[in-house]
């Protein structure tokens, strides 16, 4: 009798205190867009490279979503295709040698990540959103433009595939954020005017 009670308590404990470690995986496509005519450095902060979201939901335990690695590989591919040339820099403040070769520095940031489960939303989907802030600094470290985009993704999932469904939704959110950056960054008014201004500058 005693052992049955203990087993029940342990079982209940296991069911309520479960942790879901989400794996974010998916393809990293190269965007088919016209390149922005600029040579830029890109500075990935440590928080961007290793971004991890952890959240405890009352009825669904702990969720760990390490999206930094996949997000970084997506951005590396995206930025390489978006500009004439891209090099990763160690600091947003350029050295004299870098200033001679680069027109500016891009600093991407993940400001916020959020997700919803079907239990919370009442819908049959797991959904995820990522708020990105892309800052362009000129070679003298003056801010040229800030571009804020929200990537959104959703994926259908069952009770026993919740981790995979949220992983898929997160990957779709990265992809959606990438879409907005690929299509919109070159048309951002401040960047258009920066490019026009650079065109007029003596080489």
């Amino acid at each position, binding site marked *: 009798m005693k052992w049955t009670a203990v087993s029940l308590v342990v079982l209940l404990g296991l069911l309520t205190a479960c942790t879901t470690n989400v794996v974010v995986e998916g*393809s990293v*496509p*190269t*965007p*088919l*867009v*016209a390149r922005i005519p600029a040579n830029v450095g890109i500075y990935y902060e440590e928080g961007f490279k290793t971004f991890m979201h952890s959240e405890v939901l009352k009825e669904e335990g702990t969720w760990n979503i390490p999206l930094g690695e996949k997000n970084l590989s997506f951005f590396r591919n995206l930025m390489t295709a978006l500009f004439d040339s891209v090099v990763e820099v160690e600091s947003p403040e350029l050295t004299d040698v870098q200033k001679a070769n680069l027109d500016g520095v891009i600093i991407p940031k993940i400001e916020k990540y959020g997700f919803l489960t079907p239990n919370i939303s009442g*819908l*049959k*989907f797991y959904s995820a959103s990522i708020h990105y802030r892309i800052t362009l600094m000129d070679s003298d470290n003056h801010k040229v433009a800030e571009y804020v985009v929200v990537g*959104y993704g*959703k994926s*259908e999932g069952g009770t026993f595939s919740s981790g995979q469904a949220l992983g898929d939704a997160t990957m779709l959110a990265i*992809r*959606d954020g*990438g*879409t*907005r950056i*690929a*299509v919109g960054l070159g048309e951002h008014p401040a960047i258009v005017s920066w490019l026009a201004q650079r065109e007029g500058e003596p080489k």
Partner: protein
Amino acid sequence: MKNGCLIVLVVTLLTSCVTARIEESRTASTGLNNDEALVILGRASYNDRQTEESFTDCLADALSTGSEPIRLIPQAQFKDQLYPWFEPRTAPASSDDLARLFAQPGVQDRIEASKIRYLAWINGDTVTTDRGGSFSCTLSTFGGGCLGVTYWEENASYEASIWDLQNLTTAGEISADASGTSYLAGLILPIPIMARPGNAACKALAGQLREFLQTDEG
């Protein structure tokens, strides 16, 4: 042999009735050479309803097999090759947008290199329209069992809009509707009697789509 008959009998008994209706509207002549390909794309949206991936997978399976298989480019591969132009946010809403899309660098080249002749956009979903009854299962130290009957009615409604990428026009539209009621009866053991309207709509749409593309009618 006896076992085979028993399996067929059980499957027949456990399969509920589904009614399906198919409609076609053609606006241009079609035809598909052996080396030309079709892409099936589920229309994605940011609201709570969208075409299930399982439905487009079912269509792809049905069209790529059989006596006259159609060459298909997988949806994920196509979207990756043409990223970011077929994402939910950027996908062309009508064939009128194709000319604008083809003006983007590299898009036309990639489509021509893969010899993609048609795009079939699939719109729709399967919804539960009614449910009722009462069903419960009990498990105790003396044994267990189920008792009661529950039912649910589902309606599958899908539409395929076929775009001709050679002529940059809409070649036609095909719609498939199917509905059926599934039952779960409990007589100690739970006995499911399943209607699969989504599957019926898939088979009907695939058959009509194959005929639409391979029959050259003007």
